[in-house]
């Protein structure tokens, strides 16, 4: 037996060694190059295109008078509410669809049908049915987040390795135990991927949702800026949306590392 332990080689490390330092440097170089290209383009005289300096100045102004912070908070609140409600509902519905063939047969036609309709196309209907308050805005974001993450969750449950379920079953596990101790952990990676897709969809729907008679919000601010040909403000809005989305995605990525670090990768 000792002979086995000695000659059993430890698994070899991955071929590609990770060098986080180098990656970070390349990331920064790419961003600086992008800013440089942007500056060059704006100075080459493309009509109306503003450069990074002007945009930064406008950003500082908007932060100073509190507009940007207010807009961000308003947008974040909508995105977060819609996203949270959407994914919170998507997880149980996804499990239901993955675990019970009957539930899947009943729910799937609706999910697949509504998935083909862009959330933006729901907006006219949402306004007529829900008025012009917060409800229709949050609703379309909710719908976008729900539809994109429910499919991933339910696919995750369907894809749970049957051998793992059999392994639990032969150890004496009941259906309930199998669900809680095998299906739920095994589909966690899919759920988190679903949440990331849902988050992308939620941000994607935000600007359009804020076209619905909003009084504040990044999308509303950009809409206003468009009326006044105010390019710097539009850029500030775009960059804010990008940065906020990136931060939220990174947070989910951290959660993914934390909860699904057990996965064998590449």
């Amino acid at each position, binding site marked *: *037996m*000792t*002979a*086995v*332990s000695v*000659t*059993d*080689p*430890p*698994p070899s490390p991955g071929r590609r060694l990770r060098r986080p330092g180098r990656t970070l440097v390349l990331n920064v170089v790419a961003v600086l190059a992008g800013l440089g290209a942007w500056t060059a383009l704006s100075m080459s005289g493309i009509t109306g295109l503003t450069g990074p300096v002007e945009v930064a100045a406008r950003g500082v102004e908007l932060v100073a008078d509190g507009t940007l912070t207010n807009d961000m908070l308003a947008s974040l609140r909508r995105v977060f509410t819609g996203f949270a409600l959407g994914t919170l509902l998507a997880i149980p519905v996804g499990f239901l669809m993955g675990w019970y063939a009957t539930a899947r047969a009943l729910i799937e036609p609706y999910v697949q049908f509504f998935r083909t309709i862009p959330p933006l196309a729901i907006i006219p209907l949402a306004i007529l049915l829900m008025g012009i308050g917060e409800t229709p805005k949050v609703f379309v974001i909710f719908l976008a987040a729900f539809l994109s993450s429910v499919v991933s969750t339910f696919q995750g449950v369907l894809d749970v*390795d049957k*051998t*793992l379920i*059999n*392994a*639990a*079953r*032969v*150890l*004496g*596990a009941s259906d309930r*135990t199998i669900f809680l*101790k*095998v299906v739920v*952990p*095994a589909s*966690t990676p899919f759920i988190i991927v679903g949440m990331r897709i849902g988050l992308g969809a939620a941000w994607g729907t935000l600007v359009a949702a804020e076209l619905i008679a909003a009084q504040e919000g990044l999308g509303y601010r950009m809409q206003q800026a468009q009326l006044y040909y105010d390019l710097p403000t539009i850029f500030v809005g775009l960059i804010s949306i990008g940065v906020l989305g990136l931060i939220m995605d990174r947070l989910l990525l951290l959660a993914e590392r934390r909860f*699904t670090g*057990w*996965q*064998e990768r590449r």
Partner: protein
Amino acid sequence: MNTKISFQGVSKTFELKGGRFLALDRVDLDIADREFVTVVGPSGCGKSTLMGMAAGLVEPGTGRILLDGAPVTGPGPDRGVIFQQYALFPWLTVRKNVEFGLRLQPISAEERHRRAQHAIDLVGLTDFADALPKTLSGGMKQRCAIARAYAVGPQVLLMDEPFGALDALTRVQLQDQLLDTWSRERRTVMFITHDVDEAVYLANRVVVMAARPGRIHRIIDVDLPYPRTEEVRLSPEFSRIRNEVWHSVYHQAPAA
């Protein structure tokens, strides 16, 4: 001898597109208590199906399977199953994997830890008890799966080509280790393989199956002493039995 598992007139038909496929045709087989039986045969001979039935994962079509005289109605912790694909829970450490089955039993936490540790020591994974499966080699993963099956104290071990995915060297090491574990805590073992050497080296008896329809072709006794060592593996007696099994696997007369 006490019969542990008894297959009595077991047949199984699968409905496929374009017709019915007779996977097993009236199989009769008795496996004695603490016996090590290997089942070898060409693909499609129904050997995995036969084992799946003993595990309670596959329903027999006709006939019945008795465990200690009582019909098998489903899976249970009295029969440990080892799968070719290891089937470890990748989110659990070696120790938690081994404890999985123990947690389903009405025993104290102390007892659970003690039994898990014992099983981990038994397969030589003591230093890797807190490692995740992704950090283990194939051989170590399969040893962990064996520990997990042993921990719940099954009377029967059902192994479905457990070393099929391993390289030849690791495979030989695991065979020795399995026999070592088995000789210290003897259980009834039904071991499916497609490797003739492995079948002969491990077993008291080799069951050779034939395909289309799946059935038992021959049963060959292996009168070699345990513990089996390299000496046994290289002995003329081993070669003789190996040749006999080889011929009955590869030169089967077509079904009448």
